């Protein structure tokens, strides 16, 4: 990595290699393409929304790895029932 790369805050080639590999390995290990992961997310949102109202803006769904195993991690905030009721009566 050259002096100028560092000066302009460019990522080192080793860092790009690592980040790219992280993504590739998740897809290789799970057989999930980024497009498939997106459609999985949409299905999840649809299924959960039938039961509770969720905050789709701040939710996070992604694949994380824990050693050699992958897990689907979802953090989905549920909108509070009180606020929902308050809004309806307004």
């Amino acid at each position, binding site marked *: 990595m050259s002096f100028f790369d560092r000066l302009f805050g460019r990522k080192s*080639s*080793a*860092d790009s290699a*690592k980040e*790219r*590999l992280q993504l*590739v390995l998740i897809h290789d*290990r799970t057989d999930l393409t980024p497009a498939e992961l997106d459609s999985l997310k949409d299905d999840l949102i649809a299924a959960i929304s039938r039961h509770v109202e969720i905050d789709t803006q701040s939710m996070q769904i992604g694949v994380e790895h824990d050693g050699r195993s992958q897990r689907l991690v979802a953090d989905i905030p549920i909108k509070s029932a009180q606020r929902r009721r308050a809004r309806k009566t307004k």
Partner: protein
Amino acid sequence: MPAQVITVTSGKGGVGKTTAVANLAVALASNGSKVVCIDGDIGLRNLDVILGLENRIVYDIVDVIEGRCRLKQAMIRDKKLPELYLIPAAQTRDKNSVSPSDMNRLVKDLRNDYDFVLIDSPAGIERGFRNAIAAADRVLVITNPEVSAVRDADRVIGILEAEDKGPAALIINRLNPALVKKSDMLSADDVLDLLAVELIGIVPEDENVIISSNRGAPVAHDPKSKAGQAFRNIARRLKGEKVPFLDLDSSGSLWERLQRLAGRK
């Protein structure tokens, strides 16, 4: 004690499988173990030239399997190390002339008379790879600190797990400490983070590997070579010794090294 049967494989070609098998064999045999190495790369025989034994070949592994000779007749004794033998690959046949059960049978006959059987696998994940891992008690996956090699290593490690041949142990070969320092090469820690397997050795990029392969005398014979030292350390780890990993970061000026010694860097 029956032999430990160890296969070296990689997924990607050209990352150093044959070099590793030759050097581990030399290092183990120099240390008093009885070693047989088997060239599992049928059709692309190489271990013989790396060990400098190409002129002594009469029979090969397919001759043994097809009953044209006895096992002992195909075993070539090393020039320098009397307890090191090579069973060469067939050069004019293809990998389908051997099956996993052939390999199991052949290795079974060696188990009681030797301490280590080392098997050199071809690249890829097809028949030749399946043959090479069939009889293994332990599989060493070798990779280079590069994106394609690491990706292929991950695939192989996954297959080994699925086939109950895991957990694999990892050799990182051709690490260039100067490039790592400039953040232009994945470090050993990066590779371990990505692959999440046990590390058994880090071998630096070393021109002595090429020089010694020209001569047909693996670099593990050379007491001064860093790669040779790294392979000797892996051999000791295979015997169950705890050996610290080499400090490869001897790059930089004397001043930098002194500062590091003084704990200032």
